[in-house]
């Protein structure tokens, strides 16, 4: 049940998906890996939409050079833990949700436990080794992985439903080299918002997901396109999963 404050807060979106949809968001637990450029818009939009439990994990401290894009963090937060800054902002945006901000590096030894019973994993990382690890956990738990990546004015996003769509390893078998990447804040703003939109649609069980579709954004040209991607039957990460046709949507 919703309090009057919640009913007011969510009034305009309950016009779209009703109390039942809002209830689905409230019951959901979403794991966001990273509180940086992508993690900022993702967590902000999921918080204000009323996703009931948000776990957000980051190991970094806010640096001045983060502030052109990591809109969760303010100038006054420089030197603070990103998790502390994120928790404060998200809870201020919406006191009616639960925010677990965990200051730790996501590693093979802790990933399964950190993700716990979350209904989905949002990839807001800045490196492929950790992305591949999230991909493995998503496959093991058969929960979706909402992928996003950015560089400069360019971005990509796709929604991975283990057993149904290609996984991250099917699409990107090899990681690009590490670099200090150039970026303007609007790029993670656009891609992170698309990821958050995917999470909301998945939880509501409505609309068409970016399943088997790689969304590619070119901000210089203001042009978006998509590429169909397919499962690799020999994929080292998901090759052993039987193909299921229907996306494993959220239980009612």
């Amino acid at each position, binding site marked *: 049940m919703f309090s009057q404050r919640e009913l007011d807060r969510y009034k305009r979106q309950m016009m779209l998906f009703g109390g039942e949809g809002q209830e689905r968001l409230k019951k959901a637990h979403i794991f966001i890996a990273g509180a940086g450029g992508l993690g900022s818009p993702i967590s902000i939009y999921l918080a204000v939409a009323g996703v009931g439990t948000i776990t957000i994990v980051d190991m970094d401290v806010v640096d001045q050079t983060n502030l052109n894009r990591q809109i969760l963090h303010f100038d006054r937060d420089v030197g603070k833990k990103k998790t502390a800054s994120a928790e404060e902002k998200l809870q201020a945006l919406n006191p009616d949700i639960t925010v677990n901000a965990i200051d730790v590096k996501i590693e093979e030894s802790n990933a399964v436990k950190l993700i716990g019973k979350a209904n989905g994993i949002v990839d807001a990382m800045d490196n492929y080794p950790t992305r591949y690890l999230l991909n493995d956990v998503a496959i093991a738990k058969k929960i979706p992985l909402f992928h996003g*990546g950015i*560089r400069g004015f360019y971005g990509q996003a796709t929604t991975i439903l283990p057993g149904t769509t290609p996984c991250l390893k099917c699409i990107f078998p090899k990681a690009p080299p590490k670099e200090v*990447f150039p970026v303007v804040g609007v790029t993670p703003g656009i891609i992170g918002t698309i990821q958050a939109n995917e999470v909301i649609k998945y939880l509501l069980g409505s609309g068409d997901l970016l399943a088997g579709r790689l969304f590619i954004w*070119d901000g210089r040209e203001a042009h978006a396109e998509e590429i169909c991607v397919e499962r690799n039957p020999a994929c080292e990460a998901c090759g052993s999963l039987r193909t299921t046709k229907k996306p494993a949507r959220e239980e009612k």
Partner: protein
Amino acid sequence: MTVKIRFFARFRELLGTDILTDVTAGTTLRSLITTISQRNPEGHAAIFDENGTFHEFVILMKNGKRIELGDAADTSVADGDEIAVFPPVAGG
């Protein structure tokens, strides 16, 4: 025979995109991309290593179908083909 090459992200910055080019019969995917990318040494270096082998993270598509990097030298292109070449982006 005309084929279209589409580069994405960093490759697009260095080489442009939607490049229409005439090819002769028997041209392979690998030789085509090698030739086009040589227009800009930095573009070539972004896609190939110093031995002229594709960087392992490069993704190739022909008419929307994935082509494994190892098959690019044995895959010929034909009139009207659309080739896409892109790097995954890693930032967050």
